[in-house]
């Protein structure tokens, strides 16, 4: 049972990244893989600042800013230098690897005896439930803020940009600026997942971001399938479904581990699972 609860909390921690990928992939239709780098960047910053006795709460703005900056660089390379989005993301992701390694100064850093966000707030005495409650409150807040943002005039403009650029240009929207802001937001949210996971797992590893984008992608795909299936129009509910997708994804992985699949094969299982999610709706269509 505790095994699944752990997966549940991890799903919540990673949900922030899934919301970020929802923004880049679903709203802007940009395949952004800066994710791997900005996720680790969030975790690295968290580790450094925590070991320097920064309060966990104060680290949040720093992590958001760093993630946003990474996304902005990708966005600027993509829109102003006019380089393919995928390549821009790879460039920044690769550069971030060195930056992260330089910042951390070593390949991993345990965070065992520092006060972190999970230990600094107490809702329940049992740590599993406390983690769960904290993750839940945290992600609810983020989901709420995002839902509000996407319903404002600015948010409508953002959502329209991914739909029809001729239209948004004609309606006074600077599409390039919008994309840079969108990628900044997406990677800020991704860095926030790095922040949460580092503290939840009590360590930061320079390789922890490798392939993480596929986890986010899978969560968004699960979310998207459900959004289509239930025909969900409300933005808030769409985000809630993406968060649920993230949790579901971790539960499925936990389940595969529990039936005895070799942990070394976890990334293979992840990739296979994502492929499956993409294929199922197609099989149904071709019926």
């Amino acid at each position, binding site marked *: 049972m505790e095994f699944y609860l752990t997966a549940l909390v991890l799903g919540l921690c990673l949900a922030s990244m899934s919301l970020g990928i929802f923004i880049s992939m679903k709203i802007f239709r940009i395949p952004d893989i800066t994710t791997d780098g900005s996720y680790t960047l969030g975790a690295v910053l968290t580790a450094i600042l925590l070991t320097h006795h920064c309060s966990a709460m104060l680290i949040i703005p720093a992590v958001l800013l760093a993630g946003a900056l990474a996304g902005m660089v990708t966005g600027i390379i993509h829109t102003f230098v006019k380089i393919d989005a995928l390549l821009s993301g790879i460039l920044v992701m690769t550069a971030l690897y060195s930056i992260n390694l330089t910042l951390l100064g070593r390949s991993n850093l345990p965070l065992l005896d520092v006060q972190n966000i999970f230990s600094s707030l107490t809702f329940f005495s049992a740590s599993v439930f406390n983690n769960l409650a904290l993750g839940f409150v945290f992600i609810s807040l983020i989901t709420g803020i995002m839902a*509000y*943002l996407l*319903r*404002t*005039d*600015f948010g*409508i*403009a953002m*959502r*329209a940009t991914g*739909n*029809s650029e*001729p*239209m*948004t*240009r*004609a*309606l*006074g*929207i*600077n*599409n390039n600026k919008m994309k840079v802001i969108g990628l900044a937001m997406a990677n800020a949210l991704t860095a926030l997942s790095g922040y949460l996971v580092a503290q939840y797992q009590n360590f930061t590893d320079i390789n922890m971001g490798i392939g993480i984008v596929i986890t986010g992608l899978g969560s968004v795909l699960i979310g998207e399938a459900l959004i289509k299936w239930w025909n969900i*129009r409300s933005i808030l509910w769409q985000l809630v479904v993406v968060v649920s997708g993230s949790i579901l994804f971790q539960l499925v992985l936990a389940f595969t581990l529990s039936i005895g699949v070799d942990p070394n094969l976890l990334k293979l299982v992840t990739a296979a699972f994502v492929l499956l999610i993409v294929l199922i709706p197609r099989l149904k269509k071709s019926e």
Partner: protein
Amino acid sequence: MIELQNISKVFHKGQVNEVCALTDLFLTIQKEEFVSVVGANGSGKTTLLNIISGAVLPSSGRIRITETDVTRLPEYKRSRWIARVFQDPLKGTASELSILDNFRLAAIRTQPKNLIIGINDVFKKKVRDSIATLGMGLENKLEQAIGTLSGGQRQALTLLMSVMDDTQILLLDEPSAALDPRSATLILKTASELISQYKLTAILITHNLKEAQLYGNRLLQMSEGKIVRDVSEEEKKRLPLSEMYAWFDI
């Protein structure tokens, strides 16, 4: 209101597929003039609108709108004067957004897009009343994704969206081409009413010579990137349809 001076536009310059879409074009359009434009496929009509709106920048020449030189001004900044209905019905609206969201965006075309929620009951009522004038029954589908509507319905909505915010220039690129005859008439009547109601300066591109004869107080014919005929209001009134057809005979 709109002044094009010596405008040329060459696509793919220096390559084998080089096209001169517009050549040494001069055009002055007065305030509140309603210009109809006819011309064969590929004669440069859409490019002319794109040059005015800023979607395409000219290879040479100058553009002035209300006395301001806008030659290098990007499209999104020129939107403070210009609203447009695209030739492709899918371009003018954001398909995954609801009718309401689309109208909201159009209603703040000339304004900054702020972090406030602008869709309230007053706004909804305004949109509903506006859409009801079309008589297409769309006023009860405000929350529906606009992509679920037909091309013609979307084109009709795009037209209404163009006057949601302060507009001085309206560019219509074959707005009725995708529509059935009844809706086509409706769209053009609506457009013509909006143009006189809001005192707009307008350009209407059409392949339908009857439309061109019926609407607008000036008529241009384009051919191979040039304006080859410029017919004033008085001449246009006396111009028989048969003569217009003759323009297109080879």
